[in-house]
């Protein structure tokens, strides 16, 4: 005999808004809970780098990109911190879930591959932006910072955090062990972000090296973001916007297809 009032299954529209919002909140709460590690610790690193490089070089370098060295350095350091944290959020979330087995908690609910992509990437994006806002505000209290063009600040902050958040997802899908994740961080993310022109103007580099530096996607993130603050760019701003927007779009599509195929998630 059936119970009289069996609850009817939930009806979902074209988009499972509630599910998407829940997944996003889970990703945000995951880093917000340990904010000393995910927000304060990157801030300390940024301040340390700022202190070291200003003390080591600031007294000898007159002007870089038309401004003092500390002012040149700050946007690059903030951007580095944002993208490294966006990457760390999604990659660690996926790898830990896979290893601990609680990945089924996001695979079983009625979430489409597109909703999964958006929810996870949104979490990383939020962490990147949060780190960026916290770091900028604290540095602002110590140094005079001027914003030359809000559009470039906002666009590069969002596009770059989103890009690294999605690269983190890709790495998190691929990696089966923590070692592999550490290797991606050590040998791909750190070198690309260190050699991005955050610490020096790429105009200092000899011809061939400058061309190579301009192939680094991290260069465009930092160059455009810094233009938003200091009003001086080493490379082409339009190219930067197109590279970032194009890369975000392509990577989003790739992840959507990978999640739809169940790559490394559904055995």
């Amino acid at each position, binding site marked *: 005999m059936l119970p009289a009032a069996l609850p009817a299954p939930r009806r979902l529209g074209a988009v499972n808004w509630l599910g998407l919002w829940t997944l996003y909140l889970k990703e945000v709460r995951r880093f917000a809970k*340990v904010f*000393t*590690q995910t927000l*304060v*610790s990157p801030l*300390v*690193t940024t301040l*340390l780098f700022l*202190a*070291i*490089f200003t*003390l*080591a*070089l600031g*007294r*000898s*370098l007159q002007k870089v990109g038309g401004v003092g060295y500390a002012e040149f350095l700050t946007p690059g350091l903030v951007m580095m911190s944002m993208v490294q944290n966006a990457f760390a959020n999604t990659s660690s979330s996926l790898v830990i879930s896979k290893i601990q087995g609680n990945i089924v908690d996001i695979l079983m609910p009625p979430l489409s591959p597109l909703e999964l992509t958006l929810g996870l990437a949104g979490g990383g994006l939020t962490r990147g932006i949060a780190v960026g806002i916290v770091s900028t505000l604290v540095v602002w209290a110590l140094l005079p910072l001027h914003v030359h063009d809000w559009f470039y600040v906002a666009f590069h902050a969002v596009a770059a955090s989103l890009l690294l958040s999605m690269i983190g997802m890709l790495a998190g899908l691929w990696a089966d062990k923590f*070692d592999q994740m*550490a*290797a991606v961080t*050590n*040998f791909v993310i*750190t*070198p690309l972000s*260190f*050699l991005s022109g955050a*610490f*020096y103007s790429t105009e*200092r*580099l000899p011809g061939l090296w400058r061309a190579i530096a301009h192939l680094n996607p991290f260069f465009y993130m930092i160059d455009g973001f810094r233009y938003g603050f200091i009003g001086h760019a080493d490379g082409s701003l339009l190219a930067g916007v197109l590279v970032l927007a194009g890369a975000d779009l392509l990577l989003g599509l790739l992840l959507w297809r990978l999640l739809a195929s169940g790559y490394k998630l559904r055995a």
Partner: protein
Amino acid sequence: MSLGPDLAPRRFGRVNWIGVAALYRRETWRLQKDYVDSLLGPALANLLFMLILTVAAAGTNVSAGGLPLVDFVAPGLIMFAGGERAFSAACVSLLFDKLEGMIADVVMAPLTAGERLAAYAGAATTCALVSSAVTALALSPFAHVLPRHPAVLLYFLLAGGLFLALLGILSGLWSRRWDHYAALLAYFLIPFSYLSGMFYGIEGLPALARRLIALNPLYYVIDGLRYGVTGVAETGVWPGALLILGLDLVLLAVVYRLFRSGWRLKA
């Protein structure tokens, strides 16, 4: 009924040499197994630091403490690579064993507190020496790393490595969660190392900054190491050498007492 000669309990002399050697081997094994992330990763990061400084300072005559900037910075990076490895090796091993319950294998083994101390501190100091050597090799194309005074260099590498190894053991005993380890790295070890005058000479710094740096024992280790490599030091080498020896002895005594009492090891 006799158990036969083979089954009699093992007899120890004054020191359980086999036990010490086994624990030492176990503690250095992780470095061999995980050398990509624990040796090559940090060496690459230090190499990147060097490249950035070289490019950022190119064309100017940035110098520190009477040396070209790269030669000034290299000994600090070599020390940092070793010290960070010694600290992490000791801390991670103890914390991991405590969390996984494997610490019983060490606590139950017929090892005295002194033997345990020797094996843990010896293994972590070995890791420091290996990591320093790998980083020195990575930096050798860019900076002067061939020692002028090899004995001084070796002394400071050993004494400085032991200092951080003992701090690592202390931290590993104290920590109860991974958060504690992450916090120690971000808020203690990295600021403590980076603000040790590793990247800039202290002349010309504000008085307060000079006084703070002069309170940091790592400043004397790095300065002594720099004397060993380049023959130039900012302070006297002997006071630094004695200071670090004294700190090592105090820490050895503290950690010995803690191992003996079973602090945070035997509930």
